[in-house]
């Protein structure tokens, strides 16, 4: 069972960072996962007083504060206008409204969990994380970093015309995914680019990209071949929710459907 000897509601990020340098400190997000651990925490640091619960927009970026809840993501009209239903689709299956009113974006990303829908979704977009000490780095880099004592301040998505699709397969509707896939396409540096992430393999989400020029009249066979190629790039594992073989098959199906859906939208 989790024990905590000291609770501090940080008044500044600096204070939070200083406190977090002790090995026995923990920054709390929504407390969804930390509570299930057996950690002996000396100081728990609450960031909820630092105004990190906003989704801000500039002409270039969306900046999502680390303490934004998943429910805020789900209900954000601007994200929906920009990326369609994909963002909502990525979080709406997560347990229930109460849970999503509490679980934070920062917690989801910082945890780098294998089952994370949020990570799978953001990794496919042009996403960066803002760290208090480490500055702004790509999410794809952050994902593979070992957890350290830095503080995740916000998630930054660089805008740009993108099409975004998110899909997953679950055993029950509110369970962890058996597999989760995001597909993003758009023109990057003048070239049509495709980004694919597959999460819950059950390993954490990973990203691959292609400079593919695909037209709306692409044949089913061709799309299937693309999907097979992408799905084949990831490794898969077996656990209670599914076998490696089945997961790879699902990834292939979901990727194919997402590509098809994006191309059909162009028609």
């Amino acid at each position, binding site marked *: 069972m989790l024990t905590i000897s000291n609770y501090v509601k940080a008044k500044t990020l600096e204070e939070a960072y200083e406190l977090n340098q002790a090995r026995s400190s923990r920054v709390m997000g929504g407390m969804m996962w930390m509570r299930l651990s057996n950690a002996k925490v000396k100081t728990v640091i*609450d960031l909820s007083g630092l105004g990190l619960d906003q989704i801000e927009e500039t002409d270039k970026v969306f900046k999502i504060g680390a303490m934004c809840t998943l429910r805020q993501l789900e209900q954000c009209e601007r994200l929906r206008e920009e990326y369609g239903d994909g963002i909502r689709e990525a979080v709406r299956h997560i347990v229930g*409204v109460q849970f999503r009113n509490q679980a934070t974006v920062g917690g989801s990303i910082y945890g780098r969990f294998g089952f994370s829908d949020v990570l799978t979704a953001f990794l496919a977009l042009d996403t960066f994380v803002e760290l208090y000490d480490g500055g702004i780095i790509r999410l794809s880099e952050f994902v593979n970093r070992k957890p350290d004592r830095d503080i995740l301040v916000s998630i930054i998505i660089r805008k740009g015309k993108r099409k975004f699709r998110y899909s997953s397969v679950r055993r029950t509707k509110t369970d962890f995914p058996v597999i989760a896939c995001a597909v993003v396409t758009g023109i990057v540096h003048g070239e049509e680019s495709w980004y694919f992430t597959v999460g819950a393999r059950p390993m954490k989400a990973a990203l691959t990209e292609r400079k593919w020029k695909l037209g709306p009249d692409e044949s089913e066979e061709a799309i299937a071949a693309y999907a097979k190629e992408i799905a084949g790039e990831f490794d898969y594992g077996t656990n209670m929710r599914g076998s490696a073989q089945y997961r790879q098959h699902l990834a292939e199906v979901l990727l194919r459907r997402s590509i098809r859906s994006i191309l059909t939208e162009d028609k």
Partner: protein
Amino acid sequence: MEIRFILNQKQVAVDAAPDAVLMNVLRDLGCKSVKCGCETTNCGLCTVWIDGKSRLSCSVLAAGVAGREVTTLEGVEEEAAEFGRFLAEEGAEQCGFCSPGFIMNVLAMVKEFEERDAASGSGVWDIEEIKEYLAGNLCRCTGYMGQLRAIQNYMAERRGAAEGREMKEVQA
């Protein structure tokens, strides 16, 4: 540590450990409606409102609600009883153990949807939307159908009452 917050419209101060969980603190304060069904944030039985939003009190640190407003079923007893009558008509409270958390989330949903309707002028609730809103409230007795019937009847009556009020205003 001392924690001050507003519980069911009343200021309270409690002495709680830094790792005390809100659910236990609330039960100790006499809010026995707050139940624990799973300990892993999956069942929804411990649902309370913090600043008006449904939350899972089993995974909220009591320390974190300092200065906030917490509402349990005891704080909305009248509304609970009103909706509860519709639930009881269907026999859909059954063992009743999940009822408090469920009713808290139903009332939060009704509030949220009605506010949205007031803003948009529409008033049609999709059943799928209702089911999705309440998906985090597990119930093992009822199979959920009776709960849905109760919600639909409750909404129909609220709309009827609202329309009735409008009619009266028109007549007046």
